[in-house]
């Protein structure tokens, strides 16, 4: 197992390097640079950047150097553990993304206080906001889809099986930004049932912890729902497939043959064994959750990484765009690795390939 893990980690090095190449190439190949928008020929002088200033800006950020030099510089910054400095906020990108949480440990606090300060800072950062929203969405997804998939597998071919599969398939084709818009118009604006802007109400800091949590849940309800429903079909179908597969196994037949009730067969044998492949689901779901987060956070003004990405696009904040693209890809890579390792731990045959 250790050898397998080491081999997989080693294989990740060229992949990581390639990820940086792809991100860099994508940004360099697209026409324009952060300052070229300010060079609009048809516009009046007030909207034009003076050519000397333009050259000075390019030079200031090293954009006038040949691209291999730019790439090498960026790679060196990355390798030193820094993500560069945000153009628009003029502070390190890691501060923008993680709220400077790591500094909690260098403030000279006792370890326990430092850890709690670290967690609080992280939770308030865009990264924390996105993680909280996505965890909630993931929970919602599994809580609905697992029972549905299970029931569909047990009653295979029944009306429930067919209707649930058609319904979930329809949900899968519903664009989440449309659902978000409709929910806001109906639930937020027309019925005024739930808030739909941001993560907390104004002045929520003064509330008690329970009221604060309730406030958070009310704000998170609509965006989490929008993120979750699209994956329902996928998770339910996956659950149904794995349960069906385990139900065909010899050990299930043995369990039935020795006289266990169908309920006990399901609970003790089928579900437990189906849980292992379900672990890999998180890895498979991550890319779609990441993409979904971008647009949903922007619509609901959720102060997370997705909204930050969109804001960085509007502001042409290159370092933030580069950093988030690399981090997104690395997160997907790591979650795939985690899923593979979980599989390898459960099934020794995987380690050989």
């Amino acid at each position: 197992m250790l050898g397998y893990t080491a081999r997989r980690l080693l294989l990740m090095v060229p992949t990581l390097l390639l990820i940086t190449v792809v991100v860099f190439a994508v940004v360099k190949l697209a026409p324009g640079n952060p300052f070229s928008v300010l060079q609009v020929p048809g516009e009046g002088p007030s909207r034009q950047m003076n050519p000397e200033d333009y050259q000075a800006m390019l030079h200031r950020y090293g954009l006038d150097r040949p691209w291999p030099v730019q790439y090498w510089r960026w790679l060196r910054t990355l390798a030193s553990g820094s993500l560069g400095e945000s153009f628009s906020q003029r502070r390190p990108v890691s501060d923008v993304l993680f709220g400077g949480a790591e500094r909690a440990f260098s403030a000279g606090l006792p370890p326990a206080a430092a850890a709690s300060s670290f967690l609080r800072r992280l939770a308030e950062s865009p990264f924390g906001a996105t993680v909280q929203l996505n965890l909630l969405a993931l929970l919602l997804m599994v809580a609905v889809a697992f029972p549905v998939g299970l029931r569909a597998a047990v009653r295979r071919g029944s009306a429930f099986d067919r209707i649930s599969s058609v319904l979930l398939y329809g949900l899968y084709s519903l664009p989440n930004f449309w659902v978000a818009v409709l929910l806001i118009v109906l639930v937020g604006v027309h019925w005024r049932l739930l808030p739909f802007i941001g993560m907390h109400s104004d002045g929520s800091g003064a509330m008690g912890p329970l009221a604060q949590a309730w406030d958070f849940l009310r704000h998170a309800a609509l965006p989490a729902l929008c993120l979750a429903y699209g994956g329902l079909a996928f998770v339910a179908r996956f659950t149904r497939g794995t349960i069906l597969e385990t139900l065909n196994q010899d050990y299930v037949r043995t369990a039935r043959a020795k006289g266990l009730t169908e309920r006990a067969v399901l609970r003790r044998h089928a579900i437990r064994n189906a849980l292992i492949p379900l672990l890999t689901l998180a890895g498979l779901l991550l890319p779609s959750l990441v993409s979904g987060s971008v647009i949903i956070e922007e619509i609901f003004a959720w102060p997370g990484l997705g909204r930050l990405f969109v804001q960085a696009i509007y502001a042409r904040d290159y370092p933030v765009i580069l950093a988030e693209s690399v981090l997104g890809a690395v997160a997907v890579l790591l979650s795939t690795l985690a899923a593979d390792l979980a599989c390898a731990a459960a099934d020794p045959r995987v380690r050989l390939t």
Partner: protein
Amino acid sequence: MSGREEGAVKIGAEAGTGAPPGLGGDAAGTLWALFRRSKGAMAGLGFVGFLLAAAYFAPLIANNEPLIIRYEGRWSFPAFRELPPLNHLLPKDAVDLRLAADPDWLLDLPAKPDPRVGFFLLPPVPYSPYQTRLRDVNLGPSLSRRHPFGCDDGGRDVCARMLYGARVSLLVGFLAVGVALVIGVAVGALGGYAGGWVDTVVVSRLIEVMMCFPTFFLLLAVVAVMDPRYLNAWTVMLVIGLTSWPGLARYTRAEFLRLKDSDMAASALAAGAGPVRVAFRHLLPNALTPLLVNATFAIAGSILLESAVSFLGVGVQPPEPSWGNILSLVTRYWSAWWLGLFPGAAIFLSVLSYNLVGEGLREALDPHSAG
């Protein structure tokens, strides 16, 4: 070596003749018979046909110029001016009538009768997608004002804009997937057929890395650095095509890997065919039909991507209409529900249709997988 070159040249010469083995006349017939069994897939295909017709005939359905008008004693068909090939077939002066005044006055007849106008027939939605009208700003759906889906913040008719937006959606759907297919098949075929270090070091790594990026992220990163002046339906289509090929490449590679050692490939090689010929003339047609399923799902994905970037304001730029940029207006005027309902429904129905067609194709190709 010369044998290989010859094979490569022959592909080009033979490309147009005869049906490829995988999609022969009989096979296509069987596929169609199986496909027809699925009601959902047929409904999806029907909706795609409807969209094609709506997009093509958009100038006849939504136009501020009349379909037929008798003006100063002559018959004219101004609405056909933007409808190829009819605009070339009809006599030039029959479509070239340009009414001097704002064509709006036609709507107000008979309040302002004009003696030069005789009989006239307006399109069902008598507005063009770009025409702004101050008195219709943020007007809700109204049949009496002939705005079935309401108006946007510029007083432009939403229905007219959606009809022209269907063109963007179809363009992006088909052409972006076309671009993605060309790249994906080329890369996947190279990896799957060449094998060896070409596959393990170059192709597989590349596909693996590209799969790490959620397409939407990559797409946003590209449009983020693009000059907004270059952002239109064509560039968005191209960027989607250039960023969404890895899935198709991975699939093609797997298919080629599977087919490479088949008897069919061996016998073609034994008969003296070069590797390029074997890959594209024998393996590709066999991989093509299942690839079609993935391509259909990719169309749905591309349409979703285009509407999402346009929704965020970094895709197709107004005034050019796209379903996504019409929908985004609702986030500025939350009470204008029609700006949210209708364009979103169009996106949903077309995505659902392509997904249903893809599902139908998959079942038709592999009836055992159903259920």
